[in-house]
């Protein structure tokens, strides 16, 4: 049985932990609001550019002269997994879930005989992926030092990615990030970004004869790299919101657990205090009777 002093020490240490988790939860909920607004602000642009690319892609089709970003390189041997992680922990399973999604995809591709490479963004995914798939990380992007990821960061990542694509280092790129559904629910998702995956739900063009300047293919060639950037930017923002959401939930749980622990320890403390008092009383009474 722990002594009274030990118990007291443990109670105060759990209390100070609880203070930290409580503060972190409040910080996360304040940041979440901001991150969520940013993610929502990015939606109109992403939605429009997607619609335009889809309608242009449907028009240009899979002609041999179509840009490589649309038609692909003609092979699918080397796959690049662009994995977006955060730099900080204390966010529950947020980073682990993204890494898990990427790992499953990598294993699936390797089982099919494809070569897999990694492009890692953020600090938290690196140790795990480097351990699971040693020597397969070809590029990484450091996000420490940026308080909030801006469009400029997405541009830099996209530029690096497009340069690698031009150099023929990979044929297909997938993007892994955590989709923000709500503060309680984040979903690690993977999505193909190069070549552009054209969904079956491509809106059919209105039939109005649209004029193009310079021409469809030139516009498409201009828009496709932008589209990649926007997809990455969207991933970064969704990730930022998800991270705060996950952090909030995790810290809320931690605070509640700490509260439970404090209650349990307090009961134990009181019991042993009472036991000590009873023993003392019994000793005094026994002493008095003996006289």
């Amino acid at each position, binding site marked *: 049985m722990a002594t009274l002093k030990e118990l007291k020490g443990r109670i105060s240490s759990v209390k100070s932990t609880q203070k930290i988790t409580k503060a972190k939860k409040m910080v996360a909920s304040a940041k979440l609001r901001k991150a969520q607004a940013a993610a929502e602000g990015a939606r109109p642009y992403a939605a429009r550019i997607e619609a335009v690319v889809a309608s*242009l892609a449907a028009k240009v089709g899979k002609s041999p002269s179509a840009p490589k970003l649309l038609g692909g390189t003609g092979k699918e041997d080397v796959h690049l997994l662009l994995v977006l992680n955060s730099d900080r922990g204390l966010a529950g399973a947020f980073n682990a879930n993204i890494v898990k999604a990427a790992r499953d995809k990598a294993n699936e591709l390797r089982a099919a005989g494809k070569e897999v490479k990694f492009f890692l963004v953020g600090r938290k995914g690196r140790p795990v992926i480097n351990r699971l798939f040693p020597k397969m990380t070809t590029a990484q992007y450091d996000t420490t030092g940026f308080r909030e990821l801006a469009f400029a960061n997405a*541009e830099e990542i996209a530029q690096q990615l497009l340069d690698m694509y031009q150099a023929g280092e990979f044929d297909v790129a997938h993007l892994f990030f955590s989709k923000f559904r709500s503060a309680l629910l984040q979903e690690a998702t993977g999505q193909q970004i190069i070549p552009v995956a054209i969904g079956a739900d491509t809106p059919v063009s209105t039939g109005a004869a*649209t004029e193009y*300047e310079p021409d469809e293919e030139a516009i498409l060639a201009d828009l496709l790299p932008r589209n990649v950037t926007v997809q990455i930017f969207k991933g970064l923002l969704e990730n930022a919101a998800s991270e705060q959401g996950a952090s909030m939930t995790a810290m809320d749980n931690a605070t509640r657990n700490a509260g439970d622990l404090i209650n349990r320890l307090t009961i134990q403390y009181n019991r042993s205090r009472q036991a000590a008092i009873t023993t003392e009383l019994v000793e005094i009474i026994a002493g008095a009777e003996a006289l």
Partner: protein
Amino acid sequence: MALHFELVTPAALIRSEDVYMVSVPGSEGDFGVLEGHAPFMSSVRAGELLIQKSAGAEMERIAIAGGFAEVNEGGLTILAEHIG
């Protein structure tokens, strides 16, 4: 009797309003868009957007660093990555 004009950047929807005319620095020359313009798509070079709220009104200038313009039945949409 107005043109619906939207200016969108990756960070936010900057403008969404009805205006009289917008002049856009297209990659193959400036073009003005009034209400009822034929469907049209163009890439945009770095330059200035000129926005006129009503006929004869003062021009408002917004610098943009390239982008993309689309005119359809819904109006004019400009996608720009950086605006000044």
